């Protein structure tokens, strides 16, 4: 019945062996590391950015543990691990949590739920259609709790309230596929966040750390109408492999963008998909990807 059970000793796990040499690989730039309560400067000529606060007698202090960044007179401290901080124009993937009057509440992994207004979505039947009361009543037919959407950040309010829009054919409801959640600081800001990989996988890399993996046909299908066509076995395998590869990369803090994911995908073909869930294989894949990046870059 159970022919291949894999038993390993906990102690034989090689943990963080490679961390030391990994950090010397990229740690060439000198970075100022601060922790909460560290004085950054007592000079009054600087502006207070995110992650800092002013105190009369101590000058400018850090509020988080992170790296100091200076842009002209503005000083910010960027923490390494934090919730998603939305900016206008970001591509995000989110999950609908609530249907309200005239808007949907979307969980994008930020501090507050984002709002997707009825007037900022394209409903089936023409772009310039007026939205009536009937549309308001039919909202739960378009999107309901638990649905996944890809969208763009339209506006960020002063108190951090976020509104999204899907007024582009790229965005909309997501159908069949797999979602991976990683830390938002691991996602690299790129020109495009929609990728068609050579293995037949369509990838949406949300800047909020939500990655959506689906097949190419899905990307071209019309949004709001669910496409329940069977995805062939080969593509499903590619989707699974991509998912496992992304998890491996995120565990070893490798920045995620199309190149790294493709490299890691190629490297991972030496192993079966299930093997990619083992910690030592994940480390191997991550390590080889890092080496390849170093060679190419």
């Amino acid at each position, binding site marked *: 019945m159970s022919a291949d059970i894999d038993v390993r000793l906990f102690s034989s796990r090689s943990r963080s062996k490679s961390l030391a040499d990994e950090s*010397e690989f990229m*740690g060439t730039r000198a*970075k100022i590391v601060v922790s909460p309560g560290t004085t950054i400067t007592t000079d009054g000529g600087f502006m207070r950015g995110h992650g800092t*606060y002013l105190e009369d007698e101590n000058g400018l202090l850090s509020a988080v543990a992170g790296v100091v960044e200076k842009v002209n007179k503005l000083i910010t401290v960027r923490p390494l691990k934090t919730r998603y901080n939305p900016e206008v124009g970001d591509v995000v993937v989110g999950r609908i949590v609530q249907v309200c009057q005239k808007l949907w509440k979307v969980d994008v992994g930020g501090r507050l739920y984002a709002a997707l207004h009825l007037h900022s979505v394209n409903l089936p039947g023409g772009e310039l259609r007026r939205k009536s009361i009937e549309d308001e009543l039919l909202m739960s037919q378009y999107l309901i709790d638990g649905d996944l959407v890809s969208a763009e950040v339209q506006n960020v309010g002063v108190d951090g309230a976020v509104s999204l829009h899907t007024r582009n054919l790229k965005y909309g409801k997501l159908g069949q596929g797999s979602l991976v959640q990683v830390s938002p600081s691991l996602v690299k800001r790129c020109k495009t966040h929609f990728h068609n990989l050579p293995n037949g996988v369509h990838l949406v890399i949300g800047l909020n750390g939500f990655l959506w993996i689906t097949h190419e046909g899905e990307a071209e299908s019309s949004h709001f109408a669910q496409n329940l066509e069977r995805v062939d076995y080969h593509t499903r395998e590619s989707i699974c492999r991509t998912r496992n590869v992304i998890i491996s990369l995120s565990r070893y*803090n490798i920045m995620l963008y199309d190149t790294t994911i493709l490299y890691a995908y190629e490297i991972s073909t030496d192993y079966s998909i299930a093997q990619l869930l083992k910690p030592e294989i994940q480390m191997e894949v991550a390590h080889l990807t890092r080496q390849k990046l170093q060679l190419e870059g």
Partner: protein
Amino acid sequence: MSGHQYLSEEGFRVDGRRAQEMRKLDCSLGVFAQADGSAYVKEGNTVVLAAVYGPHEVRGGRVKALHDRAVVNCQFSAATFSTAERKRRPRGDTKSVEMTLHLQQTFETAILTKLYPRCQIDIFVEVLQADGSILSVAINAATMALVDAGIGLRDYVCACSAGVFNDAALLDLNNLEESQKGTGLTVAILPKTERIVLVDMSSKIHSDHVSKTIEAAIEGCKDIHATFDAKIKERVGRLAALINTEN
């Protein structure tokens, strides 16, 4: 004084420490993948796990949300196996309610709550092993978890307990010393400004000894701060080399 001798003539305590000596401090961060921040802090035989969730949307009724700052929600609990006597501790008992309140008040002053309007920050603290100074270790663990979560803090909050035995101030009390009546107090400070954010004195101390004991505890807090700060800087420095934050 009871049967025990808390400070021997040679200047040693029951567990072999000097009067002003702290226990071994050990901590690791990011122990939970699901939480926004987490920490595992070990001070001698006292072990505490802390997890921080948030800042996130206020749960359980929008009424609690504050339009100009975040709500800090704490929960303190002790595992059934944490003490010598195995005992189920329901969450609503007097001791844990008191601890919860202490934690909440401490962190409401330390967190820059103005940065997170209409949000909620959850701090969950669980004692795995109780060997004295529970409140101080709980505060230390919660601080580390908050730093790990990248939540804006005025400063670290470092806490330490101290007590008086035969006119000598002892630092970082263990369970045996703490069970002696009329001895201990716990102090939490913001190390940068040395401002005191919490003093918990649940037993009687002679007024002559109070200031001396508090001063001793503050020294202990500074030691803890130094250890934690080095730990955090080492971790952040290592990760900063891997994650390219400039994008």
